[in-house]
């Protein structure tokens, strides 16, 4: 028989090793919780980046997410995947941060890099090897434009596209995070792509 938490089998929750870690963490084992942090760090961090756009803020909010999870892990009944439960907490914290007055004040005061600048190094990677210099230039320019257009997408379309495009989350996970039906997630991704195509065609003078 598979291990369970409060009667929920591991098939419904998560794998056996993770269940053991969760049990230990529920008993106050910090090392076990540290393992859980290590397992889900990246998924939580990227989800928060999709919501906030700032890696500095995302780091802080991701930490808060795990702190809250540690405090609430006793109430985790295993009805959902532990990862989905974590992502839901992370998304809610990220939205709280996005709405917070303190965030706006901090962004006004600090002269740090903007959202676009911060992500510049991430996007402008070298084009495919073997491309001519002209091709490389065109590819870089197009990516720069796409990045700018993504940043200017409506908030809900942008965050859904980023979550889906990261490749880290299934549609049902995204739907659980955003509290919307899966169909809405798919529509948002499709609509975001359509908008990007149209705007990019205008920028490049094409009439697709």
């Amino acid at each position: 028989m598979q291990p369970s938490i409060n009667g929920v089998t591991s098939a419904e929750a998560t794998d056996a090793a993770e269940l053991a870690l969760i049990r230990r963490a529920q008993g106050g084992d910090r090392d076990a919780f540290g393992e859980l942090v290590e397992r889900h760090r990246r998924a939580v961090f990227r989800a928060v980046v999709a919501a906030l756009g700032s890696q500095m803020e995302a780091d802080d909010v991701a930490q808060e997410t795990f702190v809250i999870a540690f405090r609430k892990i006793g109430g985790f009944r295993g009805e959902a995947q532990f990862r989905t439960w974590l992502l839901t907490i992370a998304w809610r914290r990220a939205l709280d941060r996005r709405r917070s007055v303190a965030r706006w004040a901090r962004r006004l005061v600090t002269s740090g890099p903007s959202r676009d600048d911060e992500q510049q190094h991430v996007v402008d990677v070298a084009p495919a090897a073997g491309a001519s210099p002209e091709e490389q230039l065109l590819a870089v320019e197009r990516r720069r434009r796409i990045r700018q257009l993504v940043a200017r997408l409506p908030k809900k379309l942008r965050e859904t596209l980023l979550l889906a495009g990261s490749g880290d989350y299934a549609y049902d996970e995204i739907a659980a995070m955003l509290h919307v039906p899966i169909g809405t997630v798919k529509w948002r991704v499709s609509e975001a792509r359509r908008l990007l195509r149209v705007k990019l065609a205008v920028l490049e003078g094409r009439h697709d």
Partner: protein
Amino acid sequence: MTDEPRPVDEDIDRVVHQMMDVDAMRGFRGRVLARLDDRPRAVRRWFAPVAAAVMALVVLVVLLPRHREPAPLPALATTVTSAEPPAPSTRPLPSPGAPEIPTARASAPQPLGRAAAPVVRAAVTDISERTVVIPALPAPDPIAVAPIEPAPVTIPVLETPPLIAVPPIDVPPLPPPSGRN
């Protein structure tokens, strides 16, 4: 020169994937574990309401002196007799036969001068510190109004005098023509 532009969707996917190809800074796990002993955030959330309450209190303290009662004048208050009943703020109309209700003016009938001013000011201070009971005014007599009886309107008959008789005008006949052309 490229033969065909790269499909847009592919570029979009690539850019979005690169935008999300991020990870937390080093030492993330250690920072999380270090924060587990922090006070719950919920406690810090009380800061804003508490700060607002403190601010409101400060505002009240600043504004309160304006509404405080004036300090009594110790040297002048000694001139007021404590047995004196509180004076009403308005003096009721005396009705015939009714005893006169003492008022501040009645207790200080002296003309305004050096001695009158302190007494009146002390009485005013006294009024502000006590509850003044004003006796009910006597019920007013019913007002009787005589019915209006207007005199009948008499319109004099206008008599127009007869017009002046115009005497008939006698026109003499024209003389016969004198033979001129």
